[in-house]
């Protein structure tokens, strides 16, 4: 399914060099460099607004870098036209934060959607494929339910089944654990791990959830001030004494990431306005 290019032959799935990106006047990413080999599970962490989700947008071609180069599966994303971009996206899977299931379709039709839109497979074949994917996430029995009848964890799993329908080579997870109970977090984490092992996918997980992420990730990248702040193994994160990482790992309210939004001195403001 993947296009054979020189880069695709090598082991690099993603390569970002000196990427600069932002929204109108606000710069989010500035001078970001990142290289991800095939088959890796990479966790991207950082405070809110640090540009983690923008990074996924850049990889999927939904955002365009101001400068620098974004290469996915050997292709320069910003140089692609619409058809080329859609060609690339057929190799990508993305799990959105809240699943983003189509609310007017049943679970079955949601998972069947990519097959019906992208392939000419006959309906009986699609049916078998959909049931296989649903079985993989353990929800074959829920095929005829509507998304509104699912719990948060279940809809995330259905969305996962939909995202892997066309056997992508790169899976992107946007906050896959947010808002889930611990059991669901465990299930999703295990699924991500299993998919990576069985299908040899490359996975990028953007997340805040440190525990589950450290368990499944091969590598952790922390983004701060538009750059890669730290690039390390999960074990190194656990043992790190870096105040920024400790604040993140231990959930401390104040530290290198300040509790207070930038403001004038408290006393000055109280007296000055009186």
């Amino acid at each position, binding site marked *: 399914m993947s296009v054979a290019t020189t880069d695709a032959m090598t082991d690099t799935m993603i390569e970002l060099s000196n990427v600069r990106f932002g929204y109108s006047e606000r710069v989010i990413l500035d001078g970001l460099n990142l290289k991800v080999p095939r088959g890796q599970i990479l966790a991207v962490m950082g405070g809110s607004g640090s540009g983690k989700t923008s990074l996924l947008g850049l990889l*999927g071609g*939904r955002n365009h870098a101001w400068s620098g180069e974004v290469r996915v599966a050997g292709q320069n994303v910003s140089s692609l036209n*619409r058809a080329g*971009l*859609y*060609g690339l*996206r*057929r190799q*990508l899977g*993305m799990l*959105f*934060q*809240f699943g*983003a*299931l*189509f*609310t007017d379709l049943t679970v079955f039709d949601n998972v069947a*959607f*990519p097959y019906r*839109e*992208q392939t000419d497979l006959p309906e009986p074949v699609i049916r078998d494929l959909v049931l296989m994917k649903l079985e993989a996430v353990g929800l074959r029995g829920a095929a005829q339910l509507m998304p509104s009848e699912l719990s948060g964890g279940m809809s995330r799993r259905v*969305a996962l089944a*939909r995202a892997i329908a066309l056997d992508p080579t790169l899976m992107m997870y946007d906050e896959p654990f947010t808002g889930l109970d611990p059991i669901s977090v465990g299930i999703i984490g295990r699924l991500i791990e299993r998919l990576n092992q069985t299908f040899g996918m490359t996975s990028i997980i953007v997340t805040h959830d440190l525990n589950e992420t450290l368990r499944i990730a091969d590598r952790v990248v922390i983004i701060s001030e538009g750059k890669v702040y730290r690039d390390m193994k999960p074990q190194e994160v656990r043992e790190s004494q870096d105040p920024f990482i400790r604040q993140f790992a231990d959930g401390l309210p104040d530290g290198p990431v300040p509790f207070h939004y930038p403001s004038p001195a408290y006393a000055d403001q109280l007296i000055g306005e009186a």
Partner: protein
Amino acid sequence: MLLIGLEALGASITRTLDRLGLAARFSWGVVSVAGICLVRFSLLVREMYFSGVKSLAIISVSGLFVGMVLAVQGYEVLQRFGSAESLGSLVALSLVRELGPVVSALLFAGRASSAVTAEIGLMRATEQLAAMDMMAVNPLARIVAPRFMAAVVSLPLLAVIFSSAGVLGAYLVGVQLIGIDDGAFWSQMQASVDFRVDVLNGLIKSVVFGVAVGLISVFEGYHAAPTAEGVSSATTRTVVTSSLSVLVLDFVLTVSMFRGLS
């Protein structure tokens, strides 16, 4: 003070022009992929069900009652001049030229377009459109274009159904209740309603209204802020903007179509 006022005026003009430019580019994008409705007819059929079929009841009942009221009021005036038989032509001309296309477009904006805006807005807010885009399916073609085309196709049909129901309503009140002569009612109507001038122009009007209302509803939905408040204000804007555009367009079209006739 004056300077601040001018500044605000300038800013609002810039904002309006920005939005108009956005709307124009968006409309072009929608129209250029609207051909998908021919290739995948079932997409259009589904949306016609939700906008067209589901508006059928309100359209035909409203048409019936508008026709009945027109008959009562028209009779009041006409019988003073001893020309109660002209009731048929009065009612039919008002319905076919004006009320049919305009009132059904207004009802359609309230009944169907607002729902389309809310639906697309919610799909955007819940990242369904983004998910589709990431699955290499163009949401403009898959979601937006069928809803737009459904308005363009459904509205003319609804308008003629409205007018027909209105004529029947007038017949019920005028002929069955008031007792105007049956033959005179229909023959006066036929003598004054010209198929090409009146019926076809009315149809052209409703196609234009369908394009306007359809584009406004998908535009507002697609560009709604991804919050509950954003979607609700987009829905309101759809109804307000659609209604105003229909009335303004109606004036422009009426002047250009019927000015030479009377």
